[in-house]
C-alpha cells in the first residue's frame, strides 16, 4: 500500500516545536499545491494545536520522493530547531490505523476530543478542493470520518464534561430540563465567566444577566451573548428572577450569604436555584447547600465531575479500538480487492477469448442445438478452472510465509502472460 503518514504531536514534541510547524488554512493550501507540483498525486494535511500530520499516497510509477520532516519544516518556512525524534513516519496500513485512532479521539491530548474530527474533515476538504486526493485517500478519509462518527455514537468516548465551563453547564442541565426557559446570572466578566457563558449559550440558555465590578466589561459580555447588566451590589434583589447563579469573580468575602439566599428562596416560592461558585477563595457561602431546592457547587465539585468523565472516556478506549479494527479490516479488504481486480478481469478476459476462439474454430462440427449446449459447457469449464485461483487471490492467507498480494499478482501475470501495463 503506497500510503504514509508524516507527523508531529503532543507526545513527540513540546509546544514550542509544535507551534512552529502548525499550518494555517492558507499555508496548508500553499503546501498542498507545492506538493502537487512536485508530483505527489494524493496528500492531505491535518494541522491542529496538538498535531500536524501529512498523509501521502504516491503512485508506484511516480518518481516523486515521499516528503520528509525537513521538507515539512521547509514548506512551513519555519526556523524551528527540530530533531528526528520530534517526528514520526508511519507506513502503509499502520498509517490508516493511526488516522482512524486520531479521528476517533483516542489519540488526542484530551481523550475523546470532539474538535479533531472537524479538523480532519477540513484538511481533507481542502485537498479535495485542490484536486489532490484520489481513490486511496478519498476512501481512507471517508472511512476515517465514519470511524469518528461511530466512535462518538456507539461509545461514550466523547461523553461528559472535561472543562470547568462545560461541567458547570452540564450540572445545570441535570437540574433543569429546558434551559431555554431559564435565566442565568453571571457574576464576573473574566475569561472563566466568558467560557461558562459560551457553554450555557450552546445549551440554548433563555437569557443572561451580567454583573461585574467594572460595568463596562459586563456590558461587553451582554453585547456578545445578549442579556442585561445589573450593578454588583444589586444581585440579591434579582435572585427571584434568575434560575442559575454563576460566580466567577474575585472577592475577599462572600458576595451572597446563606441568610440572603434563604430569604431569596422564599421570595421565589421555593423554585430551584442552581449556584455555581467558580471563585477561589469561594465567593458564595457554601452553607447555601443546606437549603432545600438550592444546589450549590464549587470548583472542587466541578473538578470531581471532570475527573470522573475523563476516567470514563479512558474506559471506552477498548470499545473504540474494536471499531477501528472492524473499519481497518474493511479498508484493507477494499484495498486488496483494488489491487487484484484488474488482474482478475484480464485473466477472465483471456480465458474467455481462448474459449470463444476455439469454439468458433470447431463450430461447424456441431448442429445448432448442440452449439448452445457447447456454449454452456465451455463457459462452465472456464468458470470452474478460474474459481479456485480467483478465490485464493482475493482472500489471501494469514500464514507468515505466504506470498503477498503483490507477489501473487506478479506471478499470475507472468504465468499467463498478462500485460503488465494493466496493473494498478
Amino acid at each position, binding site marked *: 500500500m503506497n500510503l504514509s503518514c508524516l507527523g508531529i504531536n503532543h507526545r513527540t514534541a513540546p509546544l514550542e516545536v509544535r507551534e512552529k510547524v502548525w499550518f494555517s488554512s492558507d499555508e496548508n493550501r500553499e503546501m498542498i499545491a507545492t506538493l502537487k507540483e512536485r508530483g505527489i498525486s494524493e496528500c492531505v494535511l491535518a494541522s491542529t494545536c496538538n498535531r500536524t500530520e501529512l498523509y501521502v499516497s504516491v503512485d508506484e510509477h511516480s518518481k516523486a520522493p515521499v516528503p520528509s520532516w525537513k521538507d515539512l519544516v521547509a514548506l512551513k518556512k519555519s526556523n524551528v530547531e527540530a530533531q528526528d525524534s520530534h517526528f514520526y513516519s508511519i507506513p502503509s496500513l499502520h498509517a490508516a490505523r493511526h488516522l482512524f485512532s486520531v479521528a476517533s479521539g483516542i489519540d488526542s491530548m484530551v481523550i475523546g476530543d470532539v474538535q479533531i474530527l472537524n479538523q480532519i474533515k477540513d484538511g481533507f476538504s481542502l485537498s479535495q478542493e485542490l484536486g489532490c486526493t484520489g481513490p486511496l485517500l478519498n476512501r481512507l478519509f471517508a472511512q476515517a470520518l465514519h470511524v469518528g462518527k461511530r466512535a462518538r455514537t456507539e461509545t461514550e468516548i466523547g461523553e461528559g464534561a472535561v472543562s470547568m465551563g462545560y461541567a458547570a453547564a452540564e450540572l445545570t442541565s441535570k*437540574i*433543569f430540563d429546558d434551559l431555554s426557559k431559564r435565566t442565568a446570572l453571571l457574576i464576573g466578566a473574566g475569561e472563566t465567566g466568558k467560557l461558562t457563558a459560551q457553554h450555557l449559550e450552546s445549551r440554548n440558555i433563555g437569557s443572561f444577566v451580567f454583573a461585574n465590578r467594572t460595568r463596562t466589561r459586563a456590558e461587553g459580555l451582554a453585547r456578545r451573548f445578549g442579556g442585561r447588566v445589573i450593578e454588583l451590589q444589586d444581585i440579591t434583589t434579582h435572585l427571584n428572577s434568575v434560575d442559575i447563579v454563576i460566580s466567577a469573580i474575585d472577592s475577599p468575602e462572600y458576595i451572597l450569604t446563606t441568610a440572603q439566599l434563604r430569604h431569596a428562596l422564599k421570595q421565589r*416560592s*421555593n*423554585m*430551584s436555584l442552581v449556584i455555581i461558585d467558580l471563585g477561589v477563595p469561594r465567593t458564595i457561602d457554601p452553607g447555601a447547600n443546606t437549603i432545600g431546592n438550592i444546589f450549590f457547587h464549587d470548583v472542587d465539585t466541578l473538578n470531581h465531575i471532570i475527573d470522573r468523565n475523563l476516567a470514563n472516556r479512558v474506559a471506552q478506549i477498548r470499545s473504540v479500538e474494536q471499531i477501528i479494527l472492524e473499519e481497518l479490516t474493511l479498508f484493507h479488504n477494499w484495498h486488496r480487492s483494488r489491487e487484484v481486480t484488474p488482474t482478475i478481469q484480464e485473466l477472465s478476459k483471456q480465458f474467455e477469448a481462448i474459449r470463444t476462439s476455439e469454439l468458433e474454430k470447431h463450430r461447424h462440427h456441431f448442429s445448432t442445438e448442440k452449439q448452445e449446449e457447447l456454449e454452456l459447457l465451455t463457459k462452465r469449464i472456464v468458470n470452474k478452472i478460474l474459481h479456485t485461483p480467483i478465490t485464493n487471490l482475493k482472500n489471501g492467507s494469514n500464514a507468515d510465509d505466504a506470498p503477498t498480494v503483490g507477489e501473487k499478482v506478479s506471478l499470475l501475470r507472468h504465468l499467463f502472460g498478462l500485460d503488465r501495463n494493466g496493473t494498478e
Partner: protein
Amino acid sequence: MFFLINLLEILLPLLYFFAIWAYAKAFFSGVKFAEDLKSILLRVVLGAHALYIILRATLLHHPPITSVFEILSLIAFTVVLVYAYIEFRTKNSATGYFILILPFFFQLISSLFIKEVPNVPPMLQSNLLGFHVSSAFLGYAAITISAVYGFLYLMLYHDIKSKQFGVIYKRLPNLETLERMSLTAAIFGFVLLTIAIIVGIIWLPRVFENFDYSDPKLFGTAAIWLIYAAGLVAKKVGGFQGRQMMVLSVAGFVVALLSITIINMFFTEFHKFY
C-alpha cells in the same frame, strides 16, 4: 383460544424479564442495542398483556377480577399501561427498569398460580364492577409510578446535593423531568381514583342491599383521595416545588399502601369476594 391464554401465561413473565433486562442494560451500561430494543419490548409486553386480558374477559365471560391472581395480572397490566403512557408523553425511557420490576413479579406470581374459578359469583360478572376495578387499579398504578418517580427524584436530589456523581446522576433524567413525570402520574392517578370512587358509589348500593357508607374501606379510599387532592392544591396554590412535592408523592403512596393493607386485612368485609 384457551391454548393462547395458557401460552401467554408462560410467555408474559418471560417478556417482562427481557424488557427489564433491556432497560437495565441501557440504564447501567448504556448499550446501544439495549437502548433500541427496550421500547420495542415494552410495546410487545403491552400488546401481549392486553391480548391476554381481553382473551380472559371474552372467553371466560367475566372481567378478570375473580381471583387474587387475575387481579395481580390486571395490576401488572395497569402499571405497564400507565408507564408506557408516561414514557410516550415525556419521551424519556431511562426509568423503565425501576418501574417494570413490580409488574414482572406480579405477573410471575399470577402465571404460576392462576386457576379458573369454577363458580364465579354473579356480582363479579358485572361490567360496571369491571369498570370500577379497572379504573381503581389504573389509579393505584399511576400513584405507584408517581411515587417511584418521586423516589428517583429524591435519590438524584440527594446525589447532586452530596456531590455524588455516579450512575444515578449519569443515567437518570434531570430533576425537572422526574418531577414532571411524577406529577403527570399523580394527576392521572387522581382522576382515575375519582372515577373509581364515583362508579363504586353508583354500583355498591345496587349489589349490597344493606350497604353502609361508614365502611372503613370507603373512609380509607376517601383519605387517599383527599391526600392527593391536597397535594395537587398545594402545588397549584401553595407553590409547593421540587423536593417538597416529591416527598408528598412518596408519603401519599405509603399512606395509600398502609391504608389499603391494614383496612383490607383487619376491618372490612364487603370488598372480599373470594
